[in-house]
């Protein structure tokens, strides 16, 4: 099985310190991977480097055979991206927004694919709504439709279900699972909801202090830390970081 994402030796240093420290992150065709870690662990910086939005100080990123940054435009035809924190442009209707992104992805019939995507997530009735008229859950769903309407080989979701109620979160998970099963789409997702991660991901990569501290199946990772589940691993790593910062005098 080939890699749809192959990032090696990623390093990113900001003025406040090293955010990402020699991270390797690979996702195979159809694989569902969760990138986990506490706030400040380096998840978003790693994602943004993998997407070519932030330039790494060292390391390489290859997406579906296209090496970044030179092959960014070609690589992005294979990638879909949505984030729970990104708004929809205010002055566009949902169908106009989706048509625009469909055209950016080079789709020959973006309207039909947008309608199919909206139906997949049970929000077909929203196609004429303005972005400002949507609830946060509906915006998230529309963002995911935007990210999936071109049948990407790799779907990257940053905090997709943050601030969603359990019903909408379930709809997101169900829609994503169906998409991945039907289309063979690989998934790279970040989330702070460990229960959700255990339901979605077959492999988890834990970051702490900008480094990969665990990589494997959820149960294996939890067992490796001597913990019962991913939530306990998360709390364990958070406590470790707190203790380290206390020792280094970051927190009194």
């Amino acid at each position, binding site marked *: 099985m080939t890699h749809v994402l192959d990032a090696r030796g990623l390093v990113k240093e*900001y003025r406040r310190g090293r955010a990402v420290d020699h991270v390797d992150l690979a996702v195979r065709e159809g694989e569902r991977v969760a990138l986990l870690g506490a706030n400040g662990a380096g998840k978003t910086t790693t994602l*943004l480097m993998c997407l070519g939005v*932030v330039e790494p100080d060292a390391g390489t990123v290859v997406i579906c055979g296209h090496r970044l940054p030179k092959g960014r435009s070609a690589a*992005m035809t294979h990638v879909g991206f949505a984030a729970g924190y990104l708004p929809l442009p205010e002055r566009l209707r949902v169908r*106009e927004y989706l048509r625009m992104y469909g055209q950016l*992805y*080079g789709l020959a019939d973006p309207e039909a694919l947008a309608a199919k995507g909206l139906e997949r997530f049970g929000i077909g009735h929203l196609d004429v709504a303005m972005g400002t008229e949507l609830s946060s859950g509906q915006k998230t769903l529309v963002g995911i439709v935007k990210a999936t*309407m071109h049948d990407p080989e790799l779907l990257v979701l940053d905090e997709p279900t943050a601030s969603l109620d359990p019903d909408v979160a379930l709809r997101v998970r169900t829609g994503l699972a169906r998409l991945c099963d039907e289309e063979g789409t690989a998934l790279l997702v970040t989330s702070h909801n460990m229960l959700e991660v255990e339901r979605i991901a077959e492999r988890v990569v834990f970051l702490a202090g900008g480094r990969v501290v665990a990589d494997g199946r959820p149960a294996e990772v939890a067992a490796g830390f001597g913990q019962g589940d991913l939530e306990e691993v998360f709390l364990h790593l958070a406590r470790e970081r707190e203790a380290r910062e206390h020792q280094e005098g970051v927190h009194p």
Partner: protein
Amino acid sequence: MSAARVSERQAPLLRIRAVARRHAYTLWRSPHRLFDVTVWPLVDTVLFGSIGIFFASQGGPGSGAQAAAGYLLAGIVLWHVVYQAQIAVATGFLEETWSRNLLSFMVTPLREIEFVAGVALFGLIKLVLGVGVVVLTALVFYSFDVTSLGLGLVPIAAVLLVAGWAVSLFVMGLVLRFGNGAEAFAWGIFFVVMPLSGVFYPLSALPVFLRPVSVLLPTTHAFAAGRALVDGRGMDWGALGLATATTVVVSAAALAFLVWMLRLFRRRGYITRYT
């Protein structure tokens, strides 16, 4: 991937069209943004046209005061070519920062040059609207028919259009580097360029120490060529040549600056300002 796609040759054009259409919707649904292309041109034309008519009434036929009226009205028409070209592209980019849409665009196949082309394409429509308002106001209010200056206006307007786009690239670079705090340049930069360009008067009217700066600006030579048409001297090919050459230099410099700032934007992770 099973979704049917257009050919690789068609894809860039489709992306450019998508960006242009996105900005058309934005303008259509934000009437206050029409201010730049309706009210400003009208106010400018009434202001400078009335000053010109007042001066003209102070002198006899063929006097310097008569020429000043022509300079003011032709100047304001040409000024709006460069101003509208710049403001349309710069605000098109700012719109993406205001709506926090930059990250979403940056993770699509859209190339930077395609984005600028899309915004500039739609900007041409705004430019036609804005300049149209000036031309009509000058004709109806002051009986000044800009077309009477002849086809020589076309190359001058073309140079000013490209100069406006070049300045907008520079503004985009500043916003990428310094964030939305730099957006004041989008509206303010031409109010620095305007007096230095001799929009309404010859270079000799400027203080001596400012003239070397003025000579470096493409707009200075373009407006000099415009005044030659107003004076009935025909096309000043020397001024037009200088305007073209300096526009090429300024455009290359602005593009290099934008590429540099974009690189810095990616290297320093400034995208987080817009997420």
